[in-house]
C-alpha cells in the first residue's frame, strides 16, 4: 500500500514540473539611419553666362554636356567619375556662349558645379527646376554623375527641368582605373549650363541674378 502511494505522488509531480521548461526571451537587433543628403555649390564654380543682349526675348546659351562627353563636358576629373571605356577629358567649349541675342564668345560662360553629399552607395533622385526673375527666364540643364559599384563604369546622366535623374552616390569601393576622376564615397556632382532669356528690356553692363532649385531626395 505504501508503494502505491509513492508512485501516484511521483506521477502527479511530473506534469507540474513542465511549467519550468519554458524559455521566454526578448531578442534584439539593430539598424542605423543613413546620413542626411545635402547639396552645395563647389566653391568658385557658380554658373555664369555673359553676353546677353538687351531686347525682350533675346537668349544666351551655355551648353553643358548631358551625357558625359563632348565639347561641353567639364571632364571626369571635375565630376569625380570613373567612367566606362575611357577617361573623358574636359571639352573644348565649356566656357563658350552662343544663342540668338547673345554675343558669341569662347570664354564668357562658366558651367556650374554642385556637389551632393549623402550615404555611400545610396540612390538619390535629383531634380532641377527652372528659375525666373522679373528680368530673366533661366533654364539650367546638364548632367549628374551616376556611379556603378566597383571599378569604372560610371556615367553622367542628363538632367533638366522635367527630366529628373535617379543616380547612385559613390560607394566605398568605387574607383576609376583609366586615369579619370576619383570617386569620393557618398558624393556625386551635377554640372549645369543654362539658357537665359530676357523677359524685359535689359540695361547694358548690368549683372542680373536669378535663383533656381536643385532638389535631391533619397
Amino acid at each position, binding site marked *: *500500500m*505504501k*508503494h502505491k502511494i*509513492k*508512485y501516484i505522488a*511521483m506521477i502527479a*509531480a*511530473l506534469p507540474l*514540473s*513542465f511549467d*519550468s*521548461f*519554458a*524559455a*521566454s*526571451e*526578448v*531578442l*534584439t*537587433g*539593430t*539598424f*542605423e*539611419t*543613413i*546620413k*542626411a543628403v545635402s547639396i552645395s555649390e563647389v566653391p568658385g564654380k557658380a554658373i555664369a553666362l555673359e553676353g546677353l543682349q538687351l531686347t525682350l526675348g533675346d537668349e544666351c546659351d551655355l551648353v553643358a554636356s548631358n551625357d558625359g562627353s563632348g565639347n561641353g563636358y567639364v571632364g571626369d576629373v571635375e565630376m569625380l567619375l570613373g567612367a566606362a571605356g575611357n577617361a573623358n577629358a574636359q571639352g573644348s567649349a565649356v566656357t563658350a556662349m552662343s544663342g540668338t541675342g547673345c554675343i558669341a564668345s569662347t570664354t564668357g560662360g562658366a558651367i556650374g558645379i554642385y556637389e551632393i553629399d549623402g*550615404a555611400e*552607395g*545610396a*540612390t538619390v533622385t535629383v531634380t532641377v527646376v527652372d528659375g525666373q526673375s522679373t528680368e530673366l527666364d533661366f533654364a539650367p540643364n546638364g548632367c549628374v554623375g551616376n556611379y556603378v559599384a566597383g571599378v569604372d563604369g560610371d556615367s553622367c546622366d542628363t538632367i533638366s527641368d522635367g527630366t529628373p535623374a535617379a543616380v547612385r552616390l559613390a560607394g566605398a569601393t568605387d574607383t576609376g582605373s583609366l586615369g579619370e576622376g576619383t570617386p569620393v564615397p557618398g558624393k556625386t556632382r551635377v554640372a549645369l549650363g543654362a539658357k537665359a532669356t530676357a523677359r524685359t528690356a535689359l540695361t547694358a553692363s548690368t549683372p542680373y541674378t536669378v535663383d533656381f532649385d536643385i532638389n535631391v531626395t*533619397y
Partner: protein
Amino acid sequence: MQLKKTKLAKQISLAILGFTLISSATADTFTASVTTLDDVQINTITGLDFGTNMFTATSQTCILDAAVPGNITMQYATTGVIAEHADFGDLSGSGGCITGNKLGTPGIYSISGATAGAVNILISQVSPQPDGDYTFVPSGCYVNFDGTTTDDADVCAIYTAGTPLLAQELADVTGTEDNTTTPSGASVAGELRFSVGGTINTGTGLVAETPYGLEFQVDVTY
C-alpha cells in the same frame, strides 16, 4: 503418559511455526527516480542587423529577407542541398531604406532542449520598440523536422509573427534525423534553428546617422 508428552510437543512446535509465519510479512520503502527534460534555451547564432541603410522619412517600410538561409546554416537535411537564396539578406521596401542585395544580416537563432522533444514556439513583435515609435514585425523560417530517417522531408518553413508553432520537434539524436543523404547541414540533437528578418516601419522620429535597437519576443514551451 509418555505418548501424551509427545503430542503436546508437536502441538507446541506447530504453534511456534505459526508465529514464525506471521513475523515474515514485511513492508519497506523503495526509491524511484524521475529525471526532468533538459531545460529549453534560446541561443543567438548570428545577430539581426539591418545595417546602416535606413532613411529618416516617416511611415516608410524596409524589409529584410530571411526566408531561405539554406539547409547548412539551418542544420537540417533534405534530398539535395538547399542553398542560401540569392535574396537572403536583401533589403527592399517602399522608401524606408536603401534597397539592394545583401545589405542586411538576418538573425539566426537556435532552440535547444530535449532530444526529439516537442516544443511550442511563438515568435512575436514587441511594442513599443526601444528607441522610438517605429515598429518591427519579425519574419523568417523555422526548421520543421519530420522525425524520421527514412526520407528527407525536413524543411525550413515560413512562420508568421504572432502565430504559435505547435508541437515542433527538436532534432533527434545527431546522425539519425534525416541526414543520411546529405551529411552537410546535419541536424544537432535537441536543437532547432530559426531565422529572423522582418519589416520595419519607420514611424516619425528617426534621426540621421543614429543607431537604433530592435526587439522581438520568442516564447518556447514543452
